């Protein structure tokens, strides 16, 4: 180590990035930290409160419920989107015009703005005029997402699956097409079944992209706001009030800046912790 020349001038090269990150991430985050330990009654008058808001948030039933809903939603969404995405990627063609057609079709949902997705599903699922809502009711299902919690949940989940499964498909497809043909030929000669090929070749080779897919889908679905906000507004009651909807209600609806800031930090730490645990756990065998 001592042999290496120390060139501290290189730090100047990373300076622009440091400044950029400081202004768009660190400084806003610090204001949140600042709010989270103070109380204000307006007029820019602040009183130091220590960790009081953190204690309050962590012990509040409202937070527990929102957190529970959030984990349930993320869990359901991951359980559907990851296997479904892999299945679609496996079924997609490997060559010919079909590849481009599939890729374009798959990318479409990803290109639609999130609030438009919410608005689309809002109208699509309306029981009296929406195609989905009206059809379901005509088929004899009692479906009304503005009144029934189960209908609301099913709609929010369906919307997320529709919106984001493509991302998993595209990642998994990229992973699949990167496997050299030799593997499949060797497997045929070894007499491997389709399941064995999936279990011992495709799945292990997709491990890295699937890890990324799961991480991205975990983080995004855990932070979901716009689509359910436009679709259900968190209702009926509080049944689809996920963490970020609750947070916005607290911060902008009730103007409880201190507890909201404390909740933001807890929220952020949960995402960080889960992502880190997941990544460390899945990658521990890689060298």
């Amino acid at each position, binding site marked *: 180590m001592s042999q290496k020349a120390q060139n501290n001038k290189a730090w100047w090269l990373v300076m622009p990035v440091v400044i950029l990150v400081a202004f768009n991430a660190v400084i806003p985050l610090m204001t949140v930290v600042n709010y989270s330990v103070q109380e204000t009654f307006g007029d820019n008058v602040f009183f130091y409160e220590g960790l009081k808001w953190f204690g309050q948030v962590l012990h509040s039933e409202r937070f527990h419920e929102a957190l529970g809903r959030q984990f349930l939603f993320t869990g359901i969404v991951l359980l559907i989107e990851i296997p479904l995405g892999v299945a679609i990627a496996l079924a997609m063609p490997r060559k010919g015009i079909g590849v481009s057609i599939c890729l374009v079709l798959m990318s479409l949902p990803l290109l639609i703005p999130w609030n438009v997705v919410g608005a689309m599903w809002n109208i699509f699922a309306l029981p009296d005029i929406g195609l989905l809502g009206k059809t379901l009711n005509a088929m004899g299902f009692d479906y009304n997402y503005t009144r029934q919690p189960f209908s609301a949940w099913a709609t929010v989940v369906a919307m997320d699956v529709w919106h984001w499964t493509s991302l998993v498909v595209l990642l998994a497809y990229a992973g699949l097409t990167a496997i*050299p043909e*030799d*593997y499949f*030929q060797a497997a*045929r*000669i070894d*007499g*491997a079944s389709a399941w064995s090929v999936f279990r011992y070749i495709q799945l292990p080779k997709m491990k890295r992209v699937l890890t990324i897919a799961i991480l991205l889908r975990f983080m995004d679905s855990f932070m979901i706001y716009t689509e359910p906000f436009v679709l259900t507004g968190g209702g009926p009651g509080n049944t689809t009030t996920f963490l970020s909807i609750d947070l916005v209600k607290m911060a902008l609806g009730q103007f409880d800046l201190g507890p909201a800031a404390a909740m933001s930090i807890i929220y952020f730490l949960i995402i960080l912790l889960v992502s880190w645990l997941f990544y460390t756990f899945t990658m521990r065998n890689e060298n």
Partner: protein
Amino acid sequence: MATIKLNNLRHSYLDNPRGDEDWALKKVDLTWEDGGAYALLGSSGCGKTTMLNLISGLLTPSEGSIQFDNKDVTQIRAEERNIAQVFQFPVVYDTMTVRENLAFPLRNRGVAKPEIDKRVVEIAQMLDLSESLDTRAQGLTADGKQKISLGRGLVRSDVNAILFDEPLTVIDPHLKWQLRSKLKELHQQFGATMIYVTHDQTEALTFADKVVVMHDGMVVQSGTPVELFESPEHTFVGHFIGSPGMNVLPGSVVDERIGYCGYTVDAHLRADQLNGADSFELGIRPEFVHFADQGIPVDIVKVSNTGRVRIVDTRHDNDLIRVVVPEGESIPADKGYLQFEPYRTTTYVDGWRVGDKVTPISSRTGAATRSQISQSQTSAGSAS
């Protein structure tokens, strides 16, 4: 074990092949004898891998048939043909241990567990993998992985043939030699037919008893290394085998005899056997061209020293003629005269040999020829 017969085999990767160039494999008739060690030699893209995949059943031929011991297997799938194939890039199942990798083909075929365990241990011992049996295959080096690929083929006791598709490409040079000797050893031990695809003549000639040379989708010659060296059926074989390759010169008729630029040459062909071909070529190995006091006048262009021999590039008119000069013989400075050894010249029309084969020296001085070939191999090896 089986004799593999290819009858009128043709293959194209296109649905509707039209011209000649659409065929990856142009009509091959060939028999691979049971228990032979074959090398399939040719430059990249000449159809070697296509032929291998047709034999193993990974591809179904567009035309023609494949027989194993007179049984038609053309439409039989790869997994049912009992062929083992080792690929250019080692294929291992990453999540399995070495033991599970070796057991995989047997498990897929429903072999009983005690039998599997016994075979796996045997094969691991043969390939020096015993110690790493319970480690994960993922962490092994390239040669270790390639041994596993090979082991998965050998572990099946009923394999008809083992096919190698340039298996040493990703192996370190010093391990190549070891692994190749291992293959030879296994061939002797198992007696299975082995077909070894390569574009490296050193690899082909050291591994095989019989070499099949392919060029542009065709089998241009199949024979022992000595036959390929002495009587190339096609100018491509002459170029490809030997280092340096054969001199190919424009032929002419001189005094109703075969000649070159006004000089007569002793060849196994009379001018009247040419059947009116417009032009023909002469092929003579650099090993059989010598400097003399009289003969074909040439300019000396370049002398390269390869250790045991010197390769001299000479020029007559616009033709490059290479001469191999053994140690101790003198080389003229700027200009000299060349003599072709009698009856060492082969004649070619449109690239293919016409007239009789060159009398094999092997029947007279076999040892000499072998040493000549191994000399070429050494120089090829050192050049690569």
